[in-house]
C-alpha cells in the first residue's frame, strides 16, 4: 500500500477559521467602544442564523452536519457580514442577509470550498440593493450622536420597538456618503472635510476600528494564514490610484490615506478579499485580483451610485478568478515559461 506521506503538519480548516475570527476581535472591541454594544447583538444574530441555515442545508443535502458546522466557515461568513452592516439595522436585515449568504451563495453551490462568490459579500450586495435606505443609515459614533444612545436603546432599534427616538436622531451620513453628496453641491474637499464626522485620517471613531482591523490583519500575516500579496496589492493600488487623482485635483479628490482608512478598505484588504475559496491561488493572480478590486472600489466610490464599493468590486473580481488563475500559472520547475 502506498499511502505516503505518513506525516502531515497543517492547521485544520477549523483552526484556520478560528484564528481569522480571533484576528477580528480587536476590530470588534474597537467597534463596541466607538458605536456601542449593539454590534454584539448583530454578531450573535448572524452567528445563530448562519449555524441554523448551514445545519438545515447540510441536512437537506444529506451531508454530515457536525464536521461542517465545526469547520467554522459559516460563523466567519456571519461575522464578516454583520461587521459590514449598519449596527442598528433591524434584526431581520441581518437574518435575511446571513440566510442568503449561507443558503444561496454557499450551500447551493456545494458548500465549503465550492462557492465561486464571497458569501458574505453576496449577502451584503443583496441587502444593499434590496434595502438601500436602511443599509446607508449608519449611526453616528457615540461621541457625535445628538441623543444619548444606551445599549437598551440600541436593542430597541434592532428589535424594532424604538419608542419615540427616531433613527435619524442618532444616525449621520458616513464620511464617504457625505463627501459624495457635498461634492455634487460644488463644495471643495477642504470645505467638506471640516464636518464633524471626519477624523484625522478617515471617519471620526471609525478610523479606530479600521486601525484595529489592520492590527488583526498583521496577526494573520504573522500566522501565515494569508500571504502579503492580497492586502499589499489592494491597499497599494488603492493608495496609488487615489494618490494620482489627489495630485491632479486636490479640491475634488481626497488624499489616499482617507481612502485607506474609511469604509471597508481595511476589513476588505485583510479579511474579505482574502477568502481563499472565491479568490485566485497563484501569487501573481492574487496581485491582479486585489489590484482589480482596488481600482473598481475607487471608481465606485468616486463615480458610482453607492458610497462604498468593496462588496461589488469583490463580486466582480470573483467572476474573473478562473481566468486570472489560468493566465497566471507560475513557471514549472525545468520548464520555459
Amino acid at each position: 500500500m502506498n499511502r505516503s506521506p505518513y506525516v502531515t503538519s497543517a492547521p485544520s480548516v477549523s483552526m484556520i477559521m478560528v484564528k481569522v475570527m480571533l484576528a477580528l476581535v480587536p476590530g470588534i472591541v474597537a467597534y463596541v467602544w466607538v458605536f456601542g454594544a449593539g454590534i454584539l447583538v448583530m454578531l450573535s444574530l448572524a452567528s445563530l442564523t448562519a449555524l441554523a441555515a448551514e445545519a438545515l442545508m447540510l441536512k437537506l443535502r444529506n451531508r454530515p452536519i457536525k464536521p461542517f458546522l465545526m469547520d467554522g466557515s459559516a460563523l466567519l461568513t456571519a461575522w464578516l457580514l454583520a461587521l459590514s452592516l449598519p449596527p442598528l439595522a433591524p434584526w431581520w436585515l441581518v437574518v435575511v442577509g446571513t440566510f442568503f449568504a449561507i443558503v444561496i451563495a454557499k450551500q447551493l453551490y456545494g458548500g465549503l470550498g465550492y462557492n465561486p462568490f464571497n458569501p458574505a459579500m453576496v449577502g451584503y450586495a443583496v441587502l444593499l440593493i434590496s434595502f438601500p435606505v436602511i443599509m446607508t443609515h449608519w449611526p453616528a459614533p457615540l461621541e457625535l450622536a445628538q441623543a444619548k444612545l444606551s445599549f437598551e436603546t440600541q436593542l430597541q432599534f434592532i428589535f424594532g420597538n424604538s419608542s419615540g427616538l427616531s433613527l435619524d436622531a442618532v444616525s449621520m451620513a458616513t464620511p464617504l456618503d457625505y463627501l459624495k453628496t457635498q461634492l455634487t453641491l460644488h463644495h471643495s474637499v477642504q470645505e467638506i472635510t471640516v464636518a464633524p464626522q471626519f477624523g484625522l485620517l478617515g471617519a471620526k471613531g471609525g478610523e479606530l476600528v479600521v486601525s484595529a482591523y489592520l492590527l488583526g490583519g498583521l496577526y494573520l500575516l504573522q500566522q501565515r494564514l494569508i500571504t502579503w500579496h492580497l492586502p499589499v496589492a489592494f491597499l497599494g493600488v488603492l493608495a496609488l490610484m487615489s494618490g494620482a487623482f489627489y495630485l491632479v485635483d486636490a479640491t475634488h479628490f481626497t488624499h489616499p490615506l482617507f481612502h485607506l482608512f474609511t469604509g471597508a478598505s481595511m476589513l476588505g484588504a485583510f479579511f474579505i478579499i482574502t477568502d481563499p475559496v472565491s479568490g485566485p491561488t497563484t501569487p501573481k493572480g492574487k496581485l491582479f485580483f486585489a489590484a482589480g478590486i482596488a481600482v473598481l472600489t475607487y471608481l465606485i466610490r468616486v463615480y458610482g451610485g453607492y458610497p462604498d464599493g468593496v462588496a461589488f468590486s469583490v463580486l466582480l473580481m470573483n467572476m474573473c478568478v478562473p481566468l486570472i488563475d489560468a493566465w497566471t500559472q507560475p513557471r514549472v520547475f525545468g520548464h520555459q515559461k
Partner: protein
Amino acid sequence: MSSLLNIVKQNFGSRTIAVNGGVHPPEHKQESTKQPIGHLALPKRLVLPLRQHVGNLPKVLVNVGDKVLKGQLLAEAEGNISAAIHAPTSGTVVAIEDALIPHPSGLPDHCITIDVDGKDEWIAHCSTDWRKQDKTQLLESLRDSGIVGLGGAAFPTQVKLRTNAKSHVDTLVINAAECEPYITCDDMLMRERADQILKGVEIAQHLLGAKQCLIGIEDNKPEAAEAMRLACLNSPLAKLVTLKVVVVPTQYPSGDARQLIRLLTGIEVPADKRSTDVGLQCFNVATLLALHRYFDFGEPSLSRIVTITGNVKTPANFEVLFGTPVTELVKAGGGVLADTDDYIMGGPMMGFSLPSIDVPITKAANCIIASAPNLFAPAPPAMPCIRCARCADVCPVSLQPQELYWFSKSSNLEKARDYNLFDCIECGCCTYACPSNIPLVQYYRFAKSEIIAQDRAKEAADLARERNEFRLMRIEREKQERAEKHAQKAVGAKAEVAKPEVGSTIEAIDDAAMAAKKAAIAAAIERAKAQKATTTPQNVSDTKPTVEAEIAEINARREAAKQAVNKQAGDNIGSKQDEK
C-alpha cells in the same frame, strides 16, 4: 549568456538558494545515529528478487539445486537498462519462483531463494586497475557489478556512467542530502567510511571525465559533512579537479536529484532533458562506495546499509545482505515496541507500507520504520479543498496541486496533463501541508496511471484501426482483381476458341499477379509488426528515467488493482456458487 548567468549564480548565489517550497518535517534522525553501523548475523535463507532495479528483468544463470559462492553471478543484466544479481553469501539455490517482494503493489515477483550454508565462502575475485584500463571495458564489466542507485531510485549505475558525444559530463553531483526524515544510512556511512566514498568519487570522475565534484549535504548532518571535508582534503582527486562539500539548508526534498543539482549549481535541468544533457550527473554516496568496492576489490553489490528505526527498542543502522528478511533487521533493532501496526520501507514522506514483514531487503531499501499510531497518526477524514494554496507554496516543482487535485478528482485528465501532472515527483509536500487532509499524492498517482492506461488503449485502438483499414483496402483490391480476372478469363475463353495455346499464358499472368499480391500482403504484415514493436511501450515521448520508473511502478499498481478486482470477482462468484 545562460552559462555566464550560471557561473554568476554558482559563485554568488548557490549558498543561499533553497528548495522552491519544500517542507521541514520533524527529522527524527538522532534516534538511529547513536550507534555505529552494526552487522547482521548470516540469516538462514536469502530471497533475492530479480527486479531490484529499474529496467529489464535479468536473465537467470543458475538452476535449483546449484551450489553458489558469495559474489557469484546468479542473473545477468539483460538489455540496455538492467542490473545483475549476485549471491550475497555461499549456499544452495533452493527455489526460483514467485515470492512476496517489498513493493507498494504487494504482488509477488520472480525471486531466487538461497539456503545459506554459513561458510560465507567467496568466489574468486580481484581488483581492477581502473586507471589504466580502457573505459569501454570498464563500463562493460560494470554490467556484471549489480550496482544500482542506492539512494532509493535503484537505476542501474552502469547506464548512468556511460557517456557519449551528446552527453558530456562536466560536473559530478554527489547526493548526500538524505532529506527524508528518519533515514540515516547515508549519514552513518559518511561518518564511518568517508575515505571509501571518496575513492568511489575518483572512479566516477575518471569514467565521466568530470571537472568538478560537488558533494551536497544538508546542514543537519554536521559530523558527516566534517568527515567528508576531511576525506576531500586527503583525496588525490582534490589536486585534479574542484572537489568540495556544499552544505545546503535542511529542507525536504533537497535530496531529489534535480533539486539538489539546482541547489549546488544553480542549473535547472529542463524537464524534457536528462541531467547529462546539461553536463551533470548525480550519484548517491552509497552507490559510489559500491563502485569503489567493485573496482578496487572486485566485490559486486551484495549488501547495503539500512536504517531500522521508528517504534523499535534500539534504532540503528546495519550492513544488511540483500535478500535478508526484514524480520531479521527488526530483531537486530531490539525488536518492536508495543502498538507497532505497520512497517514502512523508505522514509515517512515517500515510503510505502510493506505487504509483510517477511519480505527481503533489496537494493532500494534504505530504511525500515516500525510504525505505530502514536508515530504516524492515521489522517483525519478529508475536508473539501478550500483553495488555500498552501500546497502550491510548498510544491518544489512549482505545480498548482489544488488545480491538479480538482482535475484528477473530476477525471479531467487532459487538463491534468496540461497542468504538468507528469512533472509531479510525488514528494508528498502538498499532502503534508494540506489543512483539509486531502491525500493529494494518491489522486496524482491515480491520474497518472489512468492517463498512461488511456494512452495505451488509444495506441492499441489506432493500431487496430490501421489494421482494419488495411483489411478493407485488401478486400477491395481483391474484389477488383477478381473482377479483372473474370474479365480476362471471359476474354481468354473467347480467345481460346480461336487460339487454344493462349490459356497457359493467362495462367502464367494469374500466377504472377497472385505472387505480387502475396508479397504485398507479407510486406504489409511486416510493416504492421514493425510499427507495433516501436509503438507498444511508449506513452510519454520523452521518458526520463524517473518517469520510466514511475511507469513501471504504475503498471505494477494497475496489475495489482486488476488482480484484486479479478480476485474479488472470483470470490464473489465463488460465494454465489456457495449460496447455490
